[in-house]
Each structure stands twice: as C-alpha cells, then as structure tokens.
C-alpha cells in the first residue's frame, strides 16, 4: 500500500488559492488518488479523485504529474468554511476490498 506524506498544517486567508501537495512515492500502477475533507465531528467528505494529469470539479482541481509520485489539491479562492482537515488517499479503484487508509491529513485554517 502506497504511503502518503502531506503537510501537517497550512494557513491561508480568505480569497486566496490554496495548494496542498501529497507525496506518494510508492504509488502502484493501478492506484488512484483521492482527496477527502473532514470538518470537526463530521464524517469525511469526498472532494476529488484522479489517476493522472488534471481533474477539475466544482469544488477543486487535482494536479498529478507524469510520474504520479505526488499530487496537488488546489482550492480556488478559499473561504472560512474551507477550514478543515484534508486527506490524501492512494488506493486501488474498484478494489473489492475497498477499505480506505487515512493518514493524519493536513489541517487547513483559513483566516479572515
């Protein structure tokens, strides 16, 4: 299972773009990269998933370089409500087992 490394914490101000980078040097060929968001005392919420290059949805963008050994979650124009823990997960898409492995994540704090 590919281990992930991401910063423990990040600070930003409202309106700024935030980029959180995750390292996953041992990612396997079949692995996808998934990001979740968690607010205090709530369940993790899926944000975005990708395999290579760039994926964008209404919430965020995910940039994955060609070697796939890292990925960057980009949150455009953050607001106070984006203050949360962000988790980078690497696992096999469609795995019949399906268990998710959460690290400690990155605590993003957005200031006014």
């Amino acid at each position, binding site marked *: 299972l590919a281990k992930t490394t991401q910063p423990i914490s990040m600070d930003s101000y409202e309106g700024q773009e935030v980029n959180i980078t995750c390292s996953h040097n041992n990612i396997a060929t079949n692995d996808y990269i998934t990001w979740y968001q968690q607010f205090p005392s*709530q*369940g993790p919420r899926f944000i975005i998933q990708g395999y290579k290059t760039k994926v964008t949805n209404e919430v965020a963008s995910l940039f994955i370089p060609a070697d796939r050994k890292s990925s960057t979650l980009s949150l455009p124009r953050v607001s106070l409500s984006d203050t949360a823990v962000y*988790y980078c997960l690497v696992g096999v*898409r*469609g795995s*019949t087992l*399906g*268990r998710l492995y*959460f690290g400690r994540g990155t605590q993003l704090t957005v200031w006014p």
Partner: protein
Amino acid sequence: EPEVTQTPSHQVTQMGQEVILRCVPISNHLYFYWYRQILGQKVEFLVSFYNNEISEKSEIFDDQFSVERPDGSNFTLKIRSTKLEDSAMYFCASRTRREHLSDTQYFGPGTRLTVL
C-alpha cells in the same frame, strides 16, 4: 443528494454495556463500512460488508464487535461489552458496486460514543 444517515448522533453508555450503532446507507449502494476515529487520532477502518457477510475486518474488530444488515435499509454495528477505549466517533460509509465508476465511499455524520 442522497446521503448516509446514522443514529444516534451521541451515545453515552457505561463500561461493560452493549451498544448498537445504526446506519442507513445510500439506497443503491452494496458495499458498507464502519470506521472509527478516536479524538485527535486518525480515521481507522473497522470492517467492510458485502452480500450479507464481512468481506474484511481490521485487527481492531475483535470478538466484541459484530455487524448486521437486519433488513434492506439498516446496517448496524454492535459492541457487546464496551470498554473505555471504545470511546470514539464511529462512521458508517457505503459505496456502489459499479467498479467502472468511481469507488467513492460516502460517509455518514457519525455517532459519538462515550463510554463512562
């Protein structure tokens, strides 16, 4: 948007008592999971459930734990004899079986279990 629901939101119990945590997964999902998160710690996998049987369980999921899907909508986690260290947030999650689509797991809001 469909969502996973869990009840109760907060459960307080005495050590040694049995508790049942309830979850209603998203209706067309076929894989079900329980995770827990001790305060300040990581989200940890407990068990996965498919086709009315456990498909995988972690080392945390010992004989004190059991899961059941008693009907077509509910998915329960039972802890037979609670310990102080069982105090945590317990999250239920579900996902669709269709592997050609995203295997995203959708989490419920959690049940906070406090063992006194």
